[in-house]
Every structure is written in structure tokens, then in C-alpha cells.
């Protein structure tokens, strides 16, 4: 079912539909523990509550990689998706900054020994920079987007082992803000880069991209028995969705996390 969601003067086009699970492509790796938790949840659930958000052109999974992986591992043939035109400027792409608490008096040079850290003036960072903020600001040079994120993965592993698991916040909210501890700021990718990496099967580390789709369907509750079948009747799926009566919920909505987008809640 095609939906046109009004957003001020503009409309975002979404399509709720079933998709063959093998025809979708992730662009990020999964966190194994999170995947196991979701597999256990799906094994006892009767519904897929929220559709996975995918690019309408390429089938690249933009949001819901863990759900997709869990359902694939459990043998589902189909998955309920919300297709969106990823290249629509209304869909925003940011990255997740990692924030680590510093214990003791370790300096960033010691923590990240072996990495090239170029001091930079505060406020001189561009969104394409891979940066570290720890009192002072440092840039970490890289060649390609893939190389940048390979470095992010290694630096994250190093910092996590020394300082503990980080918390994740939108990169945009860290830039220019005062940072306690150490902040690792992955570069903000271009949408074309994400699609290209996904097409090549080069998966970014978990929590690399932060997609903001300004309207999101939730609570569609598609029965899993429909998604297990080899063949799925698209008309039946459409009619199933059509009988729902969505609520438009204004942001912010706090559920498992804070949603800053308009929610179409299919209660």
C-alpha cells in the first residue's frame, strides 16, 4: 500500500509491502547478542510488529538490520517492509558518535597509540572528518569511506577494551558541544557510498549510519504465518494492512528509544 505522508509543505512517499527476504541487502553488520535476543523474541511472537525500512530502488536495509537478520536466520521467506526513496532529501543520514568515559589519567595519545592524530582547531571539523575529541580535537586521516570505517571499528575495539562500552549519540549533537571523556566521531557518509558498499557486500560496523526517516510506520503487526509461506499473496497483504486505522503521533515519542519523527501507529 502506497502512503503519502504530509510533512509541512512536502509529502513523503512510503510503501508498505511484503519483500522477499533474500532480495534485501544489509549495509551494516549485526551485534551477535542483539541478534540472538531478537531471534528468541521472534521464535515466540506471532507478529512482525514494525516493518523494516528499505530503499525502494536497491532493497538496501536502512533500519531494521537485526530484525531482518533474525527473521532470515529463522527461515522466513518474506518480511514486511516500508519502502522509501533513500535519495529523497527528506531522508537524512548522520553517523553515530561513540562516547567513552575516561578512567584515570590516560591521554588520548596513549589510548590511540599507533594512530595518526592530527590536531585540529575546534570548529574546524567537517562532517566528512573522522575525528577524536578528548579535550582537544584531532583528525584521523583516511583514504576511502571503507577505510575510515575500518579504522572506526579498530579504534572502537581499542577504546572499548580500555574504557568500557561507549554510549551512542547522533554525530550532529556532538559537533561543537563540550565533550566529557573521549568522543569518536565517524565521518558522515554520503547516501551513494552506503548504497555502493551495500551493493558490494562490504558491511559497515554496527551503529555506523544513523538514518532519520521523517515518518515511520509502527505497530503494523503483520502475522508471521503470512511471512513464512513460500508464496505471499500481495493483494491479501495489502488488504490486511488496509483494514488498519493508523494514528498519526507527533514527535517526540518515547518507546524503546526516542523517535523524533512522525509515527504512523497502526494500533
Amino acid at each position, binding site marked *: 500500500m502506497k502512503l503519502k505522508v504530509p510533512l509541512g509543505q512536502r*509529502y513523503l512517499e512510503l510503501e508498505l509491502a511484503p519483500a522477499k527476504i533474500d532480495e534485501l541487502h544489509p549495509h551494516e553488520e549485526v551485534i551477535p547478542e542483539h541478534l540472538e535476543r531478537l531471534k528468541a523474541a521472534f521464535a515466540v511472537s506471532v507478529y512482525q510488529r514494525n516493518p523494516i525500512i528499505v530503499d525502494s530502488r536497491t532493497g538496501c536495509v536502512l533500519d531494521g538490520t537485526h530484525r531482518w537478520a533474525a527473521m532470515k536466520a529463522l527461515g522466513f521467506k518474506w518480511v514486511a517492509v516500508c519502502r522509501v526513496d533513500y535519495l529523497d532529501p527528506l531522508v537524512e543520514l548522520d553517523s553515530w558518535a561513540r562516547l567513552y568515559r575516561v578512567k584515570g589519567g590516560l591521554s588520548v595519545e596513549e589510548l590511540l597509540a599507533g594512530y595518526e592524530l592530527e590536531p585540529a582547531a575546534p570548529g574546524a571539523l567537517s562532517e566528512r572528518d573522522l575525528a577524536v575529541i578528548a579535550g582537544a580535537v584531532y583528525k584521523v586521516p583516511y583514504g576511502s569511506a571503507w577505510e575510515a570505517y575500518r579504522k572506526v571499528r579498530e579504534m572502537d575495539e581499542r577504546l572499548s577494551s580500555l574504557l568500557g562500552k561507549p554510549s551512542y549519540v547522533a554525530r550532529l549533537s556532538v559537533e561543537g558541544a563540550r565533550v566529557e571523556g573521549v568522543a569518536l566521531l565517524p565521518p558522515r557518509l554520503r547516501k551513494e557510498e552506503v548504497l555502493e558498499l551495500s551493493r558490494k557486500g562490504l558491511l559497515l560496523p554496527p551503529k555506523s549510519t544513523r538514518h532519520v526517516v521523517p515518518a515511520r510506520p509502527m505497530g503494523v503487526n503483520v502475522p508471521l504465518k503470512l511471512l513464512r509461506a513460500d508464496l505471499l499473496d500481495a493483494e491479501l497483504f495489502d488488504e490486511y494492512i488496509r483494514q488498519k486505522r493508523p494514528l498519526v503521533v507527533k514527535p517526540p515519542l518515547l518507546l524503546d528509544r526516542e523517535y523524533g519523527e512522525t509515527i504512523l501507529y497502526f494500533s
Partner: protein
Amino acid sequence: MAQEFLVGFRLSEPPRAGEALEAALSEAKASLEAMGVALKGWDYDGSERLLLVHISAPPELLERAAEGIARALSGTAGAEARLEKLSRDTFAPARSAVPSQPVAGFLLRAASGGLEGYPLGRDELLALLLFYFVGCDRERAILAAPFLGLDSDTVKDALDGLASKGYVDLAKGALLKPAERLLNAAIPALRARASRVVEGVRVVDEEGNVEVFSAEKLAASLYGSGVPQSLIPAILDSLSASLRGRSVVSKRALVAMVSALLEDLEPDAGAGVRFASYVYALDRVYVRVGASLSKPRWSFLRRLSREVLGERGLTPPPRLVELHAELLAREVRELVSSAPWGFEGRVLELEEVKRLAELAAPKVSVAWLELRSASAGELASEYWSRGVSGVRAAAESSDCAERKELALRGVLLLSSALLLLAGALPSNFVRVNLGALRSRLSKLPEDVRIGASRLCTLSAAVARSPAIAAPRESRKLAKALGELAEVAERLASAQRFIA
């Protein structure tokens, strides 16, 4: 002014059973109604133990409504529920994208039928109807379109076209005069398509009782006799064709026609014989009363109905007794028609029939059940406050079918309260209550009588108003509801029984 919100609750433990949540929320729905808050839906995410409840309420009542829901969850579902902060102000503002079911049904039917003969093209007329029914909100119309089988882009373009033709003002979200005139003509005409095929045919039975033919009643009898549901529409259609042009038909002829149709449709099922046997089941049943046997004729059933309904010390109105007796007859028929091929006769004990009568009583008068644990005065007071809230909530509703539903519930409760005051047992039906109330106006205290009479007139107008209302009809209903609320308030201040 009521607004829509999502309210979230985190349950301390999973509910004992899925049904327990349903029961708790259904209980909460009734208690919220008394405050003028409507519980419109809910969704439970078991993995998060998060319950989201969709309510429509004035913002100042949100806290109280949430407390009421939490109480019901704890009492009925046995789960402690903590109010969850869903938004900056705890409650998340929400808005229904799609109109209520009756309105959606009307639009779906309109979209599937012919819409010729109007000055607008099909797409424009459908877009205009949709725009009007979603409160003249362009964005909502575009969002709702696919749920009604319409294309969002087509609706968007049609609305732009309507604006350029001077039918709607999209910026102000308003209908302009030509649109109002068109809708005042088109909506009643489109509604009329659903009118019954057979109307006004009278049925006379073997005892000379006359009633108007009712397709619903026939469908219920067919269903009760075990006729497969899939055959029922075919039978009703064929019967409609046979009855066209007639003003009266005997019950025996009607039963014969239906039996013949059943034999034609399913010759190997014996459904024709079973149906006749079901209809005439009462002729072969005897009730043991003391040492003698009585046939459960209508007079017997009515007497028993009057006795059971009168157990609460209030007089049951004659129409209520009739409805109950009909229901009792159906229960008796179902009890004795379980034999696959008719039966030869059966003797029932009076106590057994009385038990059936007691089970049937709440189906025609829920007050009968509620009077077990409350006095007539207490119940009248509760009904009154819920009725007034219902009428007020109806006046504020922007969806015409929802407004009608709330209004109907409101007038049912108000008329029930006045009947209780007049010493009569209220029914579950507005028309029955208003008829009974009119005949009892003289028994009401003097300071209530005039107001109650006006309340009857206004309630009847509200009850008769169409659920799918054209702009003119909608204004008329709004006026009647406004006056009804005023009359109810005047009555409340005149009468000490009303809290």
C-alpha cells in the same frame, strides 16, 4: 475540547492471559465513559511489556483517565501498571488518520458504486466526500485515501481541482457553498442505496399477531435453525424478489417459501424441514407448571417475561416485555431444536424456562442486571452523569458516525435514568425507552416533567439523525445535542436524585 492521545503503561509482569488485558480495558472503557473520555483502541507489545492506549479526552482529564486505566489493569488483569512517559508531557498527542468505520464503510461503498449525474467527476466527488468526512483536513484526506481504496495522488489532484473550481478552501480547511449544496443532495442519495430491499411488508401469524417483515429476524431464525451462513444472503435475495409488490404475507406462507428455497439450494441437507421445525418448535414444547402442562404461547411467554423483568421492583414497559418474550422464544427454540431432524415434542420444567428468561433479561435490559448490586436511585444517578458526558463528548466529536454513536449512547443513558426515576425498568434500546418515557411523563415530579418531555423530543431527533450526515444534517444534530446538554443540565439542577 477532547483531543486524541496515546497513553503508555509498563506492566510489572505479563498479564495472566491475553483475555485479561481485554477484559481490564473493556472495564476501563465503561468507567472512562462516565468522565467523558473515550477509549478508542490499544496495542500491547509483550516483549517490552508496554501497553499503548488510544484515548480521546479533554487534556485536563488525562491524569484521571490514566489512573482509571491503571486501576482496571491492576484489578482485572492482575498487573501493576506504571504510567510511562511517552512524550515530553507524558501523553503523546495523536490523531486518527482514517475516519470511523461507518464513515469508512460509506466511502468504500461510494467508491465502488456509480457516481454519475453530479456536476463533478467521479474522482472529484469522492475527494470532496473524503475531505468533508475527515473534518476538511487536506492532509488527513491524502493520508486516509489508500485505506479507502483511493489513490493519494488522485485525491491530492482532485482537491486542487476542487479548490480552483470554488468548492473548497484548502488553506482555511473549509467547504464553500457549492460543495455544501452538492453534499446536502449527494450524501442522502448515496445513503439511500443501502435502504432495505423489502420494506413495509406485514406478516400475520396463526394467532393473528401482525408484525412488519424483518430481514434481520429472518436471518436470525435461519441461523438459529442451523442453515449455513453462506446460504442466508441468497435466501434473503430470492425472498425479496418474491415479496416485491406485496403488502402482507402470512407467516405460514413465508415459512413455506423459505423452506422451498432451502430445499432448492441444498436438497440433500434437509434444511427446509429443519427450518420449519425451528420456527414451529414452540408448538411442540410443553412447560410443566405445577401439575399441569402449558404450551409456551406468546401470552405465556409474555407473562413469564413480565414476572422476571419485574423482579427488581420496577415496571417493565410493554415493548420491553415483548422483546424479552421474543428472545425467550428463541432461546427455547434453540434449546429444543438441537435434534437433527425435527422432534416429536418435549416437556420443559417451569424453572428451566425461568432460568432461560433470566439469562435473556440482560440482553434487553442491562439495568436489570445492574440493579442486583445498586439501587434504582444510585443507578439513575450514574446513568445520568454518564449520559451527560456522552452527549457532551458527542457534541465535540468531529467524525459524524462517531458523534452519532456517542449521542445515541448518551440519550440511552439519560432516558434510562428518567425511566428509573419514574419507576420503570429501562431497556437497552433508545426507541423503547423514549416510548415508555412519554407514556410515563405524568408520573415524574412536576419540576422534571417539562424538561423530560423536551428531552424525549430532542432524543428522538438525535436517534433518528443519520450516522453519515450531510452538512445540513450535521448542523441540525449539533444544535439538537447542544440543546439536549442544556436540558439535561437544567433537569439535573431541578432534581435532587441526579448527582
